[in-house]
């Protein structure tokens, strides 16, 4: 599973990345988490409100930092 965190590096982006890693640990899933910070790539995903979460090239969430539990819900199906 490939996970990308889209965002220019603001506080919310770092919060989303940290919570995503926690949720992955909860699920016992190993995944590659990378931060995408350059604007053309971010907008290339169709995202305007950051931070956004991309799982295997699909945007699953944009514009907010969800709870750890909601992230587990978002990350679980493709892993199962």
């Amino acid at each position: 599973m490939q996970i990308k965190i889209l965002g220019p590096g603001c506080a919310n982006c770092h919060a989303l990345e940290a919570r995503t890693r926690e949720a992955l640990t909860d699920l016992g899933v190993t995944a590659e988490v990378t931060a995408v910070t350059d604007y053309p790539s971010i907008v290339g995903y169709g995202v305007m409100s950051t931070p956004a979460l991309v799982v295997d090239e699909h945007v699953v969430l944009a514009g907010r930092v969800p709870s750890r539990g909601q992230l587990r819900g978002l990350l679980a199906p493709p892993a199962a």
Partner: protein
Amino acid sequence: MSTRGVPAATRPGGAARRLPLTLAAAALAWLVMYLGNVPLWDLVVYRVAGLEPDSRLGSGVHFFLADTVKITLLLVGIIFVATIARSFLSLERTRALLGGRREGVANVAAAGLGVATPFCSCSAVPAFIGFVAAGVPLGVTLSFLIASPLINEVAVVLLYGMFGLRIATLYIGSGLVIATVGGYVLGRVCPQRWVEPFVYTTTLHGAPVVAGQRLSWPDRVALGREEAGKILRKVWPYLLAGIALGAAIHGWAPTDFFARAAGAHNPFAPLIAVLLGVPLYSNAAGILPLIQALHDKGMAMGTLLAFMMSVVALSLPELILLRRVLKPQLLAAFVGVVATAILATGYLFNAIL
């Protein structure tokens, strides 16, 4: 890890069904606290502590306590409601609403949507690219970007709490006019080559995400609660310092100093206020208690509003962000047009208030 982290949608229905009741109880509690605030401190400060209502200490302490509680209640209540209302809009929906409209009408819509759309300043650049690359005219996009920080809910709530409904309404109205006119003028005078070329070559593939699509009511309420908590945690030191300063100046500072230096008759006061305010960067909570204190000491309202607008609407961090997509010429025009519009507002209010 308890059940706290389970997504709202999968939680047993009880919490969702109790939600209207919980909200009604919270609203009632809020109302009781808001209405009971001044009588409570009358009782505590004047009766229990025995301070004189006419003394400097008595009125200062009462002012500090009552104002702190009042502004905290206003902030929490209105940010909570505003966040829930905004969760029905998203940048994506706003862009769809703005696409294909004529300039002029679209500038008005963009200014209004700039207030209503949930937006964090760190999204300014992706939003700009997303709007412009999707065909929203440059001036319309700029109207949106001017309105969003200028008319923020913290500023409006604090203005209402400190100066009343009339000033808060004037602030919103003039902010909308500044954003509409500023964006329109910029759209007219600025050629597209003043935008960094990569903005136009960015391709928008991937399905646009509608952020509000999957939100349930418990999600929206949780968002509102989080946002109110987040803003309160961020602004409380400024707020307390500002109110304490206000309470002190309330009783002790010479009354007519600012009236002489920067009253309505001084033609340079708004100009100096805007020149000082543009490079300054602060949130509205930090600047407003200062503004209240200066107003108490006779500084003209138009000058003060112009100062506040230039502090929140134009800031160095935001300009540095926007430099990524705007060439220096356009950035300079942006600052010039917005600052001029704010200045004109300041003079207008000094003349009519």
